[in-house]
């Protein structure tokens, strides 16, 4: 039964037709929403024009992309022994660059992170300065660092190792400092209450809490460095990237795709192993807490 005060559907439809603006959000909200959509859309269209993205160019580009992609199948497997050795060495170099770079970066980042952590370093000014230092280091792109290191250490993987290590100092020190700041204060207070000195409270109160977390962060960054390690070779800093960019520049697409697939497989394997290790680390931490 229809309530007398509620208009039936036909009346509502008629009202909606007569006063469309009365239904839905108020005019100010509508204007804001329209603006929030129109501004980026206008900028996007202007960019399309500025970058000369004409339909013809896009069409031709995608056509060529299709040609390039067609070389993916069947995959090229006919590498001779020398090429296979080169590729294996390239992949090994990439892994080595990532591993060594992460470890060297971690070794420098660890002491710095204690200086950047609010609950260890009680001097706000020093802490602020060190934290901004991390920010500046992080803003160096790995590729730019590699370009600079190549000038000093010559072409080869050593420049790549140093580029990753220096970039990693900023990233790891920041993440470590945040992990150290997130610990529970209770064990630290316990050590102090038992008469422990400040270094002892750090060794027995802070370190046991943070070590699994720090290791997990380091492993995660190692994974991401394996990915960055694959491109260092493009500028000549060692690793598989050199072979890849070489194949692409020579338009040997079938070989390039095979190398890309190998890189993807390597990254998946590294991610999988490192994921298992991280799981183990975090679970191991939980076990010790139960004991």
């Amino acid at each position: 039964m229809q309530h007398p005060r509620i208009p039936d559907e036909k009346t509502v439809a008629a009202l909606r037709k007569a006063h469309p603006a009365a239904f839905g959000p108020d005019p100010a909200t509508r204007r804001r929403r329209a603006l929030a959509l129109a501004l980026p859309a206008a900028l996007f269209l202007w960019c399309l024009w500025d970058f000369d993205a004409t339909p013809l160019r896009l069409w031709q580009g995608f056509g060529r992309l299709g040609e390039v992609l067609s070389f993916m199948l069947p995959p090229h497997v006919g590498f001779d022994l020398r090429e296979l050795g080169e590729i294996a060495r390239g992949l090994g170099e990439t892994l080595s660059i990532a591993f060594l770079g992460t470890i060297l970066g971690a070794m420098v980042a660890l002491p710095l992170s204690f200086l950047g952590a609010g609950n260890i370093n009680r001097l706000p000014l020093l802490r602020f300065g060190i934290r901004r230092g991390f920010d500046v280091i992080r803003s160096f792109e790995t590729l730019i660092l590699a370009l600079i290191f190549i000038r000093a250490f010559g072409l080869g993987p050593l420049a790549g190792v140093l580029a990753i290590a220096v970039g990693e100092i900023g990233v790891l020190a920041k993440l470590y400092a945040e992990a150290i700041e997130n610990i529970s204060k209770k064990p630290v207070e316990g050590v102090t209450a038992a008469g422990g000195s400040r270094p002892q409270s750090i060794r027995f109160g802070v370190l046991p809490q943070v070590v699994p977390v720090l290791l997990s962060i380091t492993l995660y960054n190692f994974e991401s460095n394996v990915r960055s390690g694959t491109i260092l070779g493009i500028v000549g800093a060692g690793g598989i990237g050199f072979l890849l960019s070489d194949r692409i520049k020579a338009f040997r697409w079938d070989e390039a795709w095979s190398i890309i697939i190998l890189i993807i497989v390597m990254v998946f394997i590294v991610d999988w192993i490192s994921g298992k290790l991280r799981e183990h680390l975090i679970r191991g931490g939980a076990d010790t807490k139960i004991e």
Partner: protein
Amino acid sequence: MSANAPPASLASFQRAFDLHRRRQRRQFWITALLLLAALALTAELANFFQVTQVTLPDGSRGERWLLGAGLPRLGDYVEKTIPQLGLSTLPQDLQHWFWRWQIWAELLLETVLIAFMATVLGVAGGFILSFPAARNLAPSGWVRWLTRRYLEIARTVPEIVFALIFVFCFGIGPLAGVMAIALHSTGSLGKLYSEANENIDMRPVEGVRAAGGTWFDQIRYGVVPQVLPNTLSYTLLRFEINVRSSSIIGYVGAGGLGEELRTAVSLQEYTDLSALFLIILATVFLIDWASEKLRHRIIGLEAI
């Protein structure tokens, strides 16, 4: 049995404890040895201990460790990039330092616009693909499998490799850079968005389904309102990352400031390098700062 001998339970505890300690110690040494072996192997592969020939101060040639030999050269290189600035001649010196500022300003704008376009395209692609990739929303198993593999490949291959390929397809210029960064962003944003989708409350979705909504209705009215704030926050973060990427992607000819970096390095225009670096640093800091402000506002709105 004497009176002060430990009771049996304590002795068995002692034994178990010793065993536990021994096992832990063994595990520690095995891990340490493995790590050392890995370090030695990787150091060998990465030429860490490579020896190089250097000219000594007395003119003779000698063998030196590459790392030690390179450090002074690194110092020289960095020193050369520092421009000579005098207090009295500051305006001229600055003009000399930033002598290509008109071109750089243009390229800087291009860099930011590449990042913007790539973010818009990446967000569109990632957002659409995040629903079939989420465990709780995928319409069928194989659709999810296919979407996930696509996203994984898109984010595993670095932007600069995509850029190399797209420069061949679309020609030298910013369009290739946009495509490359957009493809990579699709991969990483799709993963982040799909994780956000997996953490939603399923009750609104079930409500829409119970009212007879199709899969698209369920996504539009059940999922999107829940994930939108998260999505916006990830998008802004991605924009920051994309500005960094687009500033170097020009190295392979895909538009933006990277091209100038490449010329500055290869023509040994040392002070240009520091000028370009300062420009990129300032832009990245500015964009990080603005986007953090915006993010806090979005999260603040959500809290109300």
